[in-house]
């Protein structure tokens, strides 16, 4: 793929004083941080800290009670969630959320949905432009799969893949929308040490090769500290730290939060 | 006003019967998350055995045979087919029951041939006149029997070992299993209860007072109205099934009078649609039947 230069169309993602309340419960309390263009930004915290809630606010699954999320000049809060793909925000899922009986390539091609056009009749009639479009986008999807080491399993159903390969298929699908910002939800969840190391390498490669911004929610501290440029730490829905990995690691509040939770398994 | 009261009584009478059927659906759904599309064929089998044994056993004996065989058939379906398919999910099993329903219904309809036998009643068919109202005894008996069975069911559901185990299983299957609840027994009992209730219901459906028609393919169609009853009440709500049954009975009786007889069946389904659009999991339902 291309040389490790930043893409020019990158914009920053600003999470600005976001509060999310379910009834009386505040899942997020006045959380702010900024994902700078071209960085790997990690959102960490103990179980129940509000990482996933924050992720879901950004990706439009939940609507923030107050505060805003901006992507460059675009206000994300209140956007219909399926518009995000068109804005260049790709998302990979913690539970992969793939179609198990479809092939790897078919799953990844779904990522091209927002970049392509055509309804029932043009697909059904296989109009020349539809066929050309399909071929062109398939080539790109294959390229993305190969980049993620899925070249040999393009036509395998996802259900037949190893867990690690399924996770990479999910990432490939998110990349297929040609995102300028990639959201990764616990990319190493459920992985063994070898697979986690592979995933870390993949994420670094992505940033370097594609020059895009990456926001990842992660539980595995080793993975985060190895690859993140910047880390935001949440605890009980509040931001307790924000800085470089080394700054955050030295922060007494963070240490307390993690030791206190007793759920750190890394 | 008198007409209206009359219709309400008729509607509640029919509703009591639909409630019994809907309760069966709900019990099966709670135990297994399977929607039993073969419920109508349980009704037919129960009714058919009444017809066959009535001459030799008398009405009461035949009714017992019919009820018990509907229950046994339900258990057989669960034990021989559904419980053996550990790999299929609930929605696939619902489709399986459609296949089963086709087979059983066609066979009973074949056996009935050109006959459309009424099941007869053990009570006097003469309507009772109460202050200008004409009350059909079948409806009154249905209301009485329905009330007794529904009460008995709720008591059993609340206090019996089966009821407790059943509710635990509906809440959380894994946890219930860990607590030593034998899922297979709970499930089989649920099917038995549903089958017995269907067997009772048919005693009322295939009568002159209720449908004006004997046992036939039409009986199966009437039993179909238990679907909207169960769905609009909420598939996982036993109380919802009873309310749903009454709503369906009343809707059918009122719309047949005030709109048209042909429309009454559609009216039932329309009411269900309206409820579903407002509350996708029914009036009292707590969860949607989702595939994850």
């Amino acid at each position, binding site marked *: 793929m291309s040389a490790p230069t930043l893409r020019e169309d990158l914009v920053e993602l600003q999470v600005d004083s976001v509060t999310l309340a379910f009834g009386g419960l505040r899942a997020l309390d006045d959380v702010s941080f900024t994902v700078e263009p071209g960085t790997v930004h990690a959102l960490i915290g103990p179980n129940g800290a509000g990482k996933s809630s924050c992720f879901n606010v950004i990706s439009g699954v939940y609507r923030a009670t107050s505060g805003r999320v901006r992507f460059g000049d675009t206000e994300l809060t209140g956007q219909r969630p399926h518009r*995000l793909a068109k804005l260049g925000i790709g998302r990979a899922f913690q539970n992969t959320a793939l179609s198990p009986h479809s092939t790897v390539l078919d799953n990844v091609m779904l990522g091209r949905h927002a970049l392509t056009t055509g309804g029932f009749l043009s697909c059904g*009639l296989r109009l020349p432009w539809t066929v050309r479009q399909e071929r062109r986008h398939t080539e790109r999807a294959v390229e993305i799969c190969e980049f993620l080491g*899925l070249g040999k*399993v393009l*036509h395998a159903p996802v259900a037949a893949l190893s867990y690690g390969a399924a996770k990479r298929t999910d990432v490939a699908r998110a990349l297929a929308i040609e995102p300028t910002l990639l959201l990764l939800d616990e990319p190493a969840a459920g992985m063994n040490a070898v697979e986690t190391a592979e995933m870390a390498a993949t994420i670094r490669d992505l940033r370097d090769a594609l020059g895009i911004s990456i926001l990842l929610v992660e539980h595995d501290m080793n993975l985060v500290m190895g690859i993140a440029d910047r880390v935001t730490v949440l605890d009980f829905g509040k931001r307790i730290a924000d800085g470089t990995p080394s700054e955050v690691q030295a922060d007494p509040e963070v240490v307390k939060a993690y030791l206190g939770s007793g759920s750190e398994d890394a | 006003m008198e007409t209206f009261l009359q219709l309400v009584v008729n509607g509640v009478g029919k509703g009591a019967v639909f409630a019994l059927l809907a309760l069966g659906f709900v019990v099966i759904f709670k135990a297994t998350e399977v929607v039993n599309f073969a419920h109508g064929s349980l009704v037919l089998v129960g009714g058919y055995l009444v017809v066959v044994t009535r001459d030799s056993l008398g009405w009461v004996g035949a009714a017992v045979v019919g009820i018990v065989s509907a229950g046994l058939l339900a258990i057989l379906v669960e034990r021989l087919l559904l419980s053996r398919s550990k790999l*299929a999910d609930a929605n696939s099993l619902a489709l399986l029951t459609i296949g089963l329903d086709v087979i059983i219904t066609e066979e009973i309809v074949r*056996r009935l*041939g050109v006959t459309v036998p009424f099941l007869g009643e053990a009570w006097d068919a003469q309507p009772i006149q109460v202050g200008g109202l004409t009350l059909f005894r079948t409806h009154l008996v249905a209301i009485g029997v329905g009330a007794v069975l529904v009460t008995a069911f709720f008591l059993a559901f609340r206090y019996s070992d089966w009821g407790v185990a059943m509710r635990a299983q509906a809440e959380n299957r894994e946890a219930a299993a860990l607590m030593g609840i034998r899922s297979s027994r709970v499930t089989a009992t649920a099917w038995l209860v549903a089958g017995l209730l269907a067997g009772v219901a048919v005693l009322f459906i295939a009568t002159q007072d209720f449908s004006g028609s004997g046992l036939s*393919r039409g009986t199966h169609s009437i039993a179909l109205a238990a679907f909207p009853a169960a769905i609009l009440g909420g598939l996982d709500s036993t109380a919802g099934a009873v309310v749903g049954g009454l709503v369906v009975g009343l809707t059918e009786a009122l719309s047949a009078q005030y709109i048209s007889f042909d429309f009454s069946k559609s009216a039932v389904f329309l009411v269900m649609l309206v409820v*579903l659009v407002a509350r996708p999991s029914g009036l009292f339902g707590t969860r949607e039947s989702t595939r994850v």
Partner: protein
Amino acid sequence: METTTLIPTGPPATRPRRSPARLVRAAAWIALAVLLAALPLYIDTAWLKAGQYMMIGAVGAIGLTLLTGQAGQLSLAHAFFLLVGATAYTVLAGPTDEERVIGLGLDPGLALMGAVLISALVGLAFAPVAGRLRGIYLGVASLSLVFLGLYFGQSLDSLTGGTSTGRTPATFELFGFPFSNGGPEIEVLGVPIRQAERIWYLFLVLTAIAFVLARGAVRGRVGRSWRAVRDNEAAATAMGVGVARAKAGAFAVSSAFAGLAGVMTVLWFDILKPDESEYGTYGINVSIAFLAMVIIGGLGSVPGAVVGALIVNGLPQALTLFSGDLGWFGETGGGGLTPILVSSFIYGAAIVVVVLFEPGGLAAIGRRLTGLFRARPREITREETS
């Protein structure tokens, strides 16, 4: 616990085909086309009618497999949309000067397209309801359309002709060429091409169009969005698929196919006659028969739907035609075995067997068989994926 769902068929995604395999495939399709085109020259009218009936099933089943198999929306409303298509065609093409019933006197070709369009629109109108419901809830909710159809069929007799007499549809014509015994006399190899033969070719073309459209859609962008909505709405949304729109689209498309099957039905019977009960030409039994076709064929599989239709719609026809020779069957209604009864037993049992033993239906069996002849290893091991 790992469970399998009956809604599994993936797409036959663009697989890089080596040219010999491609040639074999093309040759097989051409052979099939030639065979089907030549059949009217060799088989008699009764069998042609049977074949036409199977094609009606195929068109409807293709529509249902797109909706239920690909888009994951269980529908028992298919028979209703058959009635919509059948009525729409009869009204649009009907003569304008009849006293009892309404007709718009449109060209039958246009009327056919109009009927398909109207069916799609009616399907679209139900989509907001369908979009809110899932699984079994949707299945039962869709059943209400069949009951509405029953009611409207009976009450709107100026459109449908009513249950007692029904009404006769206009003869289908294309550019003035009638698909009846009238018009120019044609003979091929000494066989006169009359109504049965002409309708055969018409249905063959319609079925082929339905098949090609559905297959193309399944393999393309639309099919992917349907499967995504079926398998995971959150993921579909994140990839830019408007879930409500995709579901509504699938419902409209499926209804259009059903509407076309309805037009074919009315041409086949040569009468539009609404049902008197829930059991009839457009009744619950028909919705269930279509569901049986797509389950037996393998949910989501277009060729599977066609084979399922051959079985479910073909069996009663074939058994009837054979029964004269075999003397198996008693009189209808006499409590004996009729062809319709026997085929109901068979497809009922087939549904049970498919759910219990082969959730992918015939399509899965077919894939396994072709897999035997393919060099590519089917199982993917861990090593291969890294």
